[in-house]
């Protein structure tokens, strides 16, 4: 039965890919402009670009996004768990979070470029800052809403603070943390593209904008495909992590 379901799932994915390529192809034929090449030309260009330096750009972008997600998680998860576990502290910190959360952090890009330079650091800090908030708020709310009986029952077994984090708060909030990472991934890729269009000569964002400036549209689409594929693979990796780490959810 499970095999059958997996088979159906794969078939739906295949159908979705066929549908998207068909829409792309129809639009390309309908508009008949160099700015929107056909999927076939774009994929040919993608394969050619992979041998001509695109892989390096993918590597740089992947490094930036992965480090940013990791940093955001390393700071956001413990902070969120701590605030969720300690409502008295959260009461004082919550106003700061609510005031700064809605500010679009991307406006800090110029100041980060000035302060941290045009290298990887400014881009990583910007993406980390944006994703950190999503992880912090989601983790805190998940920790806050954990059933009291879980905490009480483990406390009654003699657990202290550290053991409560290890056995109750972290595993109990893990599904929410992974969801926030998935949401954060989309945002991170969008910000990555923006950050790579300024003051850098490496990364998929640069590759796309450079191709645009040379009106090499097929190459530009090769970059878009690379960015899309990277996002999809990272999304799949998070999905896999959820299946392994939170196998108890979908029983």
């Amino acid at each position, binding site marked *: 039965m499970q095999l059958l379901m997996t088979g159906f799932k794969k078939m739906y994915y295949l159908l979705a890919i066929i549908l998207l390529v068909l829409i792309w192809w129809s639009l390309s034929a309908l508009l008949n402009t160099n700015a929107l090449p056909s999927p076939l030309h774009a994929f040919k260009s993608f394969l050619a670009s992979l041998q001509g330096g695109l892989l390096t750009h993918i590597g740089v972008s992947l490094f930036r996004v992965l480090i940013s997600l990791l940093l955001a998680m390393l700071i956001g998860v413990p902070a969120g768990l701590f605030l969720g576990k300690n409502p008295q502290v959260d009461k004082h910190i919550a106003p700061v979070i609510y005031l700064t959360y809605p500010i679009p952090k991307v406006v800090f890009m110029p100041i980060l470029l000035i302060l941290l330079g045009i290298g990887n650091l400014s881009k990583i800090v910007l993406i980390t800052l944006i994703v950190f908030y999503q992880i912090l708020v989601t983790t805190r709310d998940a920790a806050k809403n954990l059933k009291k*009986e879980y905490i009480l029952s483990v406390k009654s077994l003699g657990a202290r603070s550290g053991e409560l984090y290890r056995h109750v708060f972290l595993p109990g909030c893990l599904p929410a943390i992974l969801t926030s990472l998935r949401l954060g991934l989309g945002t991170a890729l969008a910000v990555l593209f923006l950050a790579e269009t300024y003051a850098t000569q490496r990364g998929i964002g640069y590759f796309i904008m450079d191709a645009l400036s040379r009106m090499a549209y097929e190459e530009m689409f090769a970059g878009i495909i690379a960015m899309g594929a990277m996002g999809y693979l990272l999304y799949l990796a998070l999905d896999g992590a959820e299946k392994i780490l939170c196998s*108890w959810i979908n029983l």
Partner: protein
Amino acid sequence: MSYVSIKSLQVDFIQKKHKITVLQSVNLALAQGKIGVIIGPSGCGKSTLLNVLSGLNLDYRGQVLIDKNPPHRTRETALILQDYGLLPWKTVWDNVCLGLQIRKVPKKDIITKTEKILKRLGLLTLAKRYPTQLSGGQRQRVAIARSLVLEPKLLLMDEPFSSLDALTREEMQNLLLQIWKETNLTILLITHNIEEAVFLGQKIFIMSPCPGTIIQEVNNEIAGDYDLRGKMGFLEMCNYLRSFFQRREIKCNY
């Protein structure tokens, strides 16, 4: 000397800046190896009383002693909550050995003790399952296993069988009786159910609310017999408790 001794216990909560006295002048004594049952209407502070006894609530006035020690200083107490408190992200095995892990018991002993208790409660074949894959009765067995694996001397139970169907409830009551007979545990159990109180409780403490206090102590010598449910004495004791609750006018001011 009683194993569990409570004298002049008072517990206050602050709610919306107002002080509410949840428990007042609570006195209770239970000898070692006995089953005590606390029965009373909702909101009379039964669970608060159990939280004090389990060491989870340290904010109280009065004297509370378990084997001559304050509750938070003893590691010989185990608590089973109404909804079992099993962690859905841990398997049956991991839930049961959690207390041993927390108490830093050597790994080898954890395996031996967990295996033994799971076998005894007929749970060994379910060891790799998660709580959501179990029936209500099986979950209750896991909660009991998790407590018993710690080899406690006092078992506190907060309405442990309230969410079970009638047949499973009786099966679990029998199981608890069997465990008690085998281990000579001291058990203090909270229930809403008069039949359960009479079947299990050698000493029945009747509580009234607002503020919660024990208004009557009933010695129930007939408890502890597997065949008690069909006997005349059982029905008479149930009727006695029922009419006791009906006679009393219970008012609450908050």
